[in-house]
């Protein structure tokens, strides 16, 4: 036990230095004025940006939902195929992640632009070109593309653990395909869904570069607002910290709801 404690020291100090201390700095900035006095004005000023917060949550939830819809059947197929094909399929999903995040988003700019690849293709096929770049749709597409692997990975890992014998037993007992899906597969994969949803939703809601590059600046999200406070003309880290704090609380709230859901399911599974 003592040995374990010594071994964990580097990790504890790491967490202190890079998680707890910065967190305390954010809280400190959020409740002080530039001269260091206590104030709650920073946090009350965040209320002005309520519409942006709602928009960020809305776009992030749409992106999360679509990612879930896309990855669920896909992960199921991968987990059932197994072997070499499964490995190759996983590799293809992971391949874009080896490239830089900015580069991937930049590539979408070239695809969706007015004279971009997509529109050139549409014109070639005699369709009318579409205007996607600099709209919310482009932002959502960027989010889905960038965070889809985070949804697929946990789903595949839980789905691989479902024993085929469980499904066979249900079939033997006369279960229809639909009830196998709702009564066995969904409950067994819920933990994967929960962690996938959080891993997509959290970075999507706080992103700033996707909305900047694909949203054309006119579709500000909460992350852009924070960025503007730190590196923009106004330079107001106190307001920026307050917005971050509010965002963190909101995300924590969302996640605690999700986690509760997961715990209940775990109990159901254990009994």
């Amino acid at each position, binding site marked *: 036990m003592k040995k374990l404690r010594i071994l964990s020291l580097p990790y504890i100090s790491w967490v202190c230095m890079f998680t707890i201390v910065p967190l305390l700095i954010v809280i400190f900035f959020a409740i002080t004025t530039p001269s260091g006095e206590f104030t709650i004005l920073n946090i009350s000023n965040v209320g002005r940006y309520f519409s942006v917060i709602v928009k960020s949550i809305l776009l992030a939830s749409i992106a999360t939902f679509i990612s879930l819809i896309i990855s669920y059947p896909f992960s199921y197929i991968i987990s059932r195929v197994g072997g070499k094909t499964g490995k190759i399929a996983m590799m293809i999903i992971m391949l874009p992640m080896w490239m830089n995040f900015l580069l991937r988003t930049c590539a979408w700019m070239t695809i969706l632009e007015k004279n971009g690849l997509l529109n050139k293709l549409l014109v070639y096929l005699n369709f009318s070109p579409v205007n996607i770049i600099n709209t919310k749709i482009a932002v959502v597409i960027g989010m889905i593309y960038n965070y889809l692997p985070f949804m697929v990975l946990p789903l595949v890992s839980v789905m691989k653990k479902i024993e085929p014998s469980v499904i066979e037993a249900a079939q033997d007992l006369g279960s229809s395909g639909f009830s196998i899906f709702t009564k066995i597969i969904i409950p067994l994969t819920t933990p994967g869904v929960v962690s996938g949803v959080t891993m997509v939703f959290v970075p999507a809601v706080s992103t700033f570069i996707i909305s900047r590059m694909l949203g054309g600046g006119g579709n500000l999200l909460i992350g852009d607002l924070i960025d*503007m406070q730190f*590196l923009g003309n106004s330079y107001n880290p106190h307001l920026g910290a307050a917005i971050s704090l509010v965002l963190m609380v909101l995300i924590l709230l969302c996640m605690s709801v999700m986690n509760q859901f997961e715990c209940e399911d775990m109990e159901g599974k254990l*009994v």
Partner: protein
Amino acid sequence: MIIKRSCLIILSLLILDLHCFAQATAASDSQVGMHRKYINVYNWGEFMSNGSDGLLNVNLEFEKATGIHVNYSTFSSNEEMYAKLKSSNVVYDVIFPSDYMISKMISEKFLAKLNFENIPNFKNIFANFKNLEYDPQNLYSVPYLWGVVGIVYNKNLVQKPVKWFDALWDKDLAKNILMFMNSRDSFGIAQKKLGVSFNTKSKADILNAAEELRKQKKLVQAYVMDEIFDKMQSEEAAIAPYYSGDALVMMKNNPNLDFVIPLNGTNRFVDAACVPANSEKKGWAELYINFLCDPKIALNNALYSGYSTPNELAYTMLPERIKNNKVAYPEQDVLSKTECYVYNSKEINELIDSLWIDIMIADEDNNVWVMPAFIVVCMIALISTNVIRSRLKKVNSKI
């Protein structure tokens, strides 16, 4: 674990900065051992000749001449530089802020007064680049390079002649207009359109400018900064405001592009060399600034960056085609209409910024059904989770 992860993502901005500071300190510390004499220089990216294209490597030449090593690092915006100077423990000896940032730093006592006896080459600077608005007695800064903001447009896509900033409000060019993603620059353009000074102190003027920008938002394709360069070159947009130095490069790459300096008068930006008040090597810093005012060095920097030099002797040494270029060196009557940014009072700055954020977050194409649909979806999700939960409980109790 996921909670921590999310916090980390949100905090990455802060942490990233901390990392940068740590690296910068480490770099300068390691240099101490190698070179006993060194100065830290903090400049714009791509703003000093580095020895490519047959030009001189300015920092190396300085080291050869004086034996003082230059630790050179770069920034990409005034705000970035200011934030770093304010929160980092690295001491820079020479920095190159722009006009309005200089006046802000002077008012905050961030800059050291220069001893011009150590900078004899200051006499090479054009008389009309001395004592500018941001540093009226010219005590703190030595102009380094300058340029103007103008309008870049595509001759094939814009039919009407472009002469005024009003062209950026042309309804025929809807969704083909790019605009600066920066409150100061965008408000400046709107103010000039209305015939008001960039440095106006009247709130009414600023509110009027905000109204103009609000009207313009429907026509704007995207709010960007450096992306203007690529988007104009690839003909993604038809018209955009941009800086003269880069415009020359763009016109060379895409002959369909042209650059005009609007008749409304425009912004002349000057990036000047300054010494922060906390520098302990002011003497060496002044030596370096003096070196930069040397005609040959100034010529190399002007040729490398593409921006215009305020150095009279360097100007006379320029090739004829650049000297006579009306974009790089506009005529005196055009130049006399230009204006530098001066740092706004805190009050005005906050007003501009909050108005800018309001414009940016306003949703023109907001569908009335978005919010109700969102709430309905949330409620469905809530109900369905509850239903599933109670069902699961029932199953459990049966077992």
